[in-house]
């Protein structure tokens, strides 16, 4: 879905830090007034939302007390495990296909390059849901019986592989020409040159982008309900039909997804900072 990019949070001074001069007394007064007003507006908004919950009885303990039970969390945890399994499987499959696409993309054969470019553009421009419907509706028509796990994992992997291939290629391109030449002058074959010298460096370079890609894959696995695979979203639906607590369960599940992706994004930024810091020294 969306491609992450994060340059904020790095240790270098950015333009945002120098946008303003140190405020004088007049500006400080203005800022303080704006702070108070905006705080009041935001608080009002929050109160309004909570009031809306209250008026419609959504703060009733029976909707929220289910989160005090251990069984609720075990069940959601099982679902989360399903989500993690699907996301990991899709990431690995996607990496495998992407590796092949990238090797074709940088190969000297024109046909392979052409095929690779076409496939990359194709997968990048098609929504994951269409791939999911492809595997869900079409595979059975060919007599192909896939388990639910692969019905969600394969389409998600295919829809991500184009971007991953481009990410890997950008990594390979970031390795200085001299590394190829040095390896060549040692008399290495192409295979060992690429996999022992070039790719390890390229891989380290693209780790942050790959982590961002995992976020996209994880988000895409929420469509698992289409194929009846028991991920967190699907288990949430079961909880809802058991306890008749739709709003609270969906809200909690959404927050869990947001937190996981938030942490993954933070890791990605930290990895990028570590990489850039090392480069500078």
């Amino acid at each position, binding site marked *: 879905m*969306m491609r992450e990019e994060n340059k904020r949070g790095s240790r270098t001074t950015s*333009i945002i830090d120098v946008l303003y001069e140190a405020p004088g007394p007049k500006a400080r007064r203005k800022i303080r007034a704006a702070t108070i007003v905006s705080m009041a507006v935001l608080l009002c908004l929050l109160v309004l939302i909570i009031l809306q919950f209250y008026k419609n009885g959504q703060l009733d303990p029976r909707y929220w007390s289910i989160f005090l039970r251990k069984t609720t969390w075990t069940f959601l945890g099982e679902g989360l495990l399903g989500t993690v399994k699907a996301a990991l499987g899709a990431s690995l499959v996607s990496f495998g296909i992407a590796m092949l696409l990238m090797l074709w993309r940088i190969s000297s054969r024109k046909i392979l390059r052409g095929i690779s470019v076409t496939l990359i553009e194709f997968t990048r421009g098609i929504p994951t849901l269409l791939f999911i419907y492809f595997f869900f509706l079409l595979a059975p028509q060919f007599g192909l019986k896939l388990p639910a796990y692969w019905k969600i994992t394969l389409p998600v992997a295919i829809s991500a592989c184009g971007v991953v291939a481009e990410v890997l290629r950008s990594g390979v391109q970031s390795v200085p020409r001299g590394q190829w030449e040095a390896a060549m002058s040692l008399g290495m074959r192409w295979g060992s040159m690429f996999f022992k010298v070039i790719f390890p460096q390229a891989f380290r370079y693209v780790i942050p982008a790959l982590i961002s890609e995992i976020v996209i894959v994880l988000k895409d696995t929420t469509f698992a*309900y289409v194929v009846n695979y028991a991920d967190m979203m699907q288990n949430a639906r079961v909880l809802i039909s058991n306890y008749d607590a739709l709003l609270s369960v969906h809200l909690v599940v959404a927050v869990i997804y947001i937190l996981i992706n938030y942490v993954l994004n933070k890791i990605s930024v930290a990895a990028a900072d570590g990489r850039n810091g090392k480069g500078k020294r």
Partner: protein
Amino acid sequence: MSISELLTEYGDKYVQALFTTWQLTAVSFLLALLIGIVITVMRISPVLPLRMAADFYVQIFRNIPGAALLILLVYALPYLNVVLSYYMCVLIATTLIPSAFCSEYLIAGMNTIGPGQIEAARSLGMTFLQIIRNVILPQAVRSSVLPMTNLLVATMLTTALASQVPLNPRDLTGIVSYINTHAVGGVTAFVISAALYAGTAVLIGQLGSLLDRKVRILR
């Protein structure tokens, strides 16, 4: 079903679906751009609560899965006595998510401008608004063409969420599941939709890089 059979029976539905997807994409993208700019201004403002609220907004909508957001809008909001039409739910979901990414791209675009330029502008006696208008905006806009074309494609991909609710006319993804539940559309039904999606994406990408080559600042 062969291509010609499929097209005579569902051709007009496909045209409708293509326009639904295009229209949803265009409207969402423009709204996302608008909200993204407002959020970005809040994020760089000196007012702490605004900054925090905008950062919170971006983190929420950058990290929430589209399906989770759509489900909240369609099924959970009615419990708060807020009932929106299916179309509105989809439009809100496909606007809010790209808007967060839009803000991220704008911030990243601003960060490509060297801090020295602001200091230089300030030493010339330019006011804050003059600096924004004459130094930051022209550069930020010109260097954000490629990220924005990517955002437009991403917005189009997000609009596939429309297939998860009953909409009339259907979007390009919805039509495929519609055809396959009414008749055996086979591979062809998918290929047509996929080609229309990918064709649109390639077109957007080509136009974007053309524009980018025209306006890019060479550094």
